[in-house]
């Protein structure tokens, strides 16, 4: 299936893929440090395994950045 990850189209061989699996495929090492946006909506972490992606879904990984000092 084709997904738009952080604004860029990407082809995945999987036909069934949930958000938790996508985080692994995309090498997000610390899922606690990202907020996941799927087609404009933000997902709750406990829902990651239950949310399955479909063709042309747009997924953004937004990273926590706590610095400023």
């Amino acid at each position: 299936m084709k997904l738009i990850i952080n604004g860029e189209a990407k082809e995945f061989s999987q036909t069934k893929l949930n958000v938790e699996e996508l985080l692994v495929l995309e090498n997000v090492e610390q899922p606690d440090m990202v907020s996941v946006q799927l087609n404009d909506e933000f997902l709750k972490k406990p829902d990651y395994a239950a949310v399955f992606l479909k063709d042309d879904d747009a997924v953004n990984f937004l990273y926590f950045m706590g610095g400023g000092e």
Partner: protein
Amino acid sequence: MIDLNDEELERYSRHIILEDVGIEGQEKILNSKVLIIGAGGLGSPIAYYLAAAGVGEIGIVDGDVVDLSNLQRQIAHTTADVGIPKVESAKAKMLAVNPHVKVNIYHTMLYSGNILEIIGPYDFIIDGTDNFASKFLINDACVLLNKPLSHGGILRFSGQTMTIKPRESACYACVFDSPPPAGVVPTCSSAGILGAVAGMLGTIQAAEALKFITGAGTPLYNTLLAFDAKSMLFRSVKLKRNPKCRVCGENGITELRDYEQALCEVKNA
């Protein structure tokens, strides 16, 4: 409104000739009150540019003193300032640039018990703090008091910022909900920060404040602007308010609380 004298007309001439600012916009700047929270890597360039722009009253909050390890990026402070409160050091530089601005300093850490009183008098709030407990508290307080806010965060070679008009555009908690668990959080002190990246993001935040005050352009409402200085790619992520947001949603907050803070990031700014 203030009548600009000859000195002011000359000092602010490059603003005044801007079609979107003009004399009217410059007068708005001179009559505005902006609060900078954190006198560090983000707060330093913000303080310089707001003072230079003539923002009439600038508040600056920071509980720390200048440390040698700050000087690689916190350009409001010099080698001679090591050991003095950052707010005093920053105030001196701001007045050196522009003696006409009024600078209010708050040498204190922000917490739920003092933040409403401190941000109350200001028109626009800028978050330049270095920890999630402060960032979430500032967002909460700005939503409660309906204060427009520029959020900023930096790490290593990256930065991100969004401008928030409470209950009209997405707030920080619409995007990030609540602080990440302590222990997984890399901070500037543990992960590092390229000094110039702090300057890049701080100047964007200062520009957002001046846009808000003058009405020029479109603030970063419902937009998270993120950049990576290694590739020098900038990305604008479109956001929308979360109707179920813990802070600004239908059942949003009605009072403040302090967020827990990891031990490694106890410094306020």
